[in-house]
């Protein structure tokens, strides 16, 4: 199990979700991924995407400038 980071700053919906999805498919179950975004919509979209695919959101943090979401990967995704 390892920790990974994804910089999705300056990207607008739905690109933060797309980048998260594409990164998560290369990770192993149990790995954690911390995504940093500037689009506040990511605070809704990434957890929604996690619920669909069974990934666990283990932390969210919103500041004035950024949103940080940390998830724990469950199973691999389909090929995009």
């Amino acid at each position, binding site marked *: 199990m390892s920790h990974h980071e994804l910089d999705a700053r*300056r990207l*607008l*919906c*739905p*690109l933060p*979700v*797309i980048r998260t*999805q594409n990164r998560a498919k290369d990770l192993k179950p149990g790995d954690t991924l911390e995504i940093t975004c500037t*689009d*506040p*919509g990511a*605070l*809704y*979209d990434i957890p*929604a*995407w996690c*619920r*669909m*695919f069974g990934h666990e959101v283990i932390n969210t943090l919103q500041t004035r400038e950024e949103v940080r979401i940390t998830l724990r990967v469950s199973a691999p*995704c*389909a*090929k*995009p």
Partner: protein
Amino acid sequence: MPRAAESGKLHFYDPAQLFMTEPRKAVALISGGLDSMLAARLMRDQGIHVEGINFFTGFCVEGHTHAIRSSKQDKPKRNNALWSAEQVGIKLHIVDVIDEYKDVVINPKHGYGAHLNPCLDCKGFMVRKAREWMERNGFDFIVTGEVIGQRPMSQRRDTMPVVARESGAFDRLLRPLCAKLLPETLPEREGWVDRAKLLDFSGRNRKPQIALAASFGFTEFAQPAGGCCFLTDANYTVRLNDLWTNRRTKNYELDDILLLKIGRHLRPRPNFKLIVGREEGENNFLNGYRRDFTHLFAVSHTGPLALVDGIVNDADLDLAARLLARFSQGRSADKVTVEIHPHGGAARAIDVVPLHPDEIPESWYL
């Protein structure tokens, strides 16, 4: 059927498994609008395993404008396709097709609609991409929320077969909302879905969809299909045409088409245009591009940030500063101090007289 023996080893049958069959799998195109949501739900209700797919072209209306504009704070900042897939209870795969989609926008085989909307080519492209995904992931057929007669280009009785043929999906493309008005497809012939439970919606009347949504308990849904693409927007296509004309090439990058969605666009001279933020959210967004463009803003008064797109001389910058001053709180002042940051050059401040409204021809506005 389970195999009794494999590689010389004896396997025992589980009697329960003899009667269990793997559900057929459909990939549903999910736009975020109501129709695709209903189509996916109809398939789920027939016991089909449905997963959604959504293609990001860069021309989507909802997410970007809501993310950028402060004035859209009242609306939920969410991706409608994700949200509607969650309402239906299916997974959604969002696929970036920005680069591949350029050819659809730039060279549409079937031409444009009222604006720069290549709807028929677009539908064919998306169904083709869905077919490729279906084949890669072992799915059986494709579902869309199309309704005969709902859209003037891509959803007509005579163009629906074109989409099925040109996408390579053929009879693996099922449109549950109007299937009874169309020839049988493979999923119907094979008995994977019950044709009797499919629908016969047609035309632009949306009452049947609204009633069906109510019967499913969908109390909230995004705007009807067709309103989610900037290429159907008259103002946006004026800006895109202007971009192509002035660059003398019919091409674009993602940043180009994002910037066309934001701010006031004015072209006072053929060699440059000005993109002026209209509110705080847009100014913040434009601020992210300041390193890539010559940009200017008023320092003596509150006002917007403006990006200069083009190659400019001092006279052009003076005009740009006077124009910018017009959109600042100093619009009625004798002079406004504007700070100019040339791309790759040193910043300087100049005092300018704001342009009077009569000095800004309507033709400058894109």
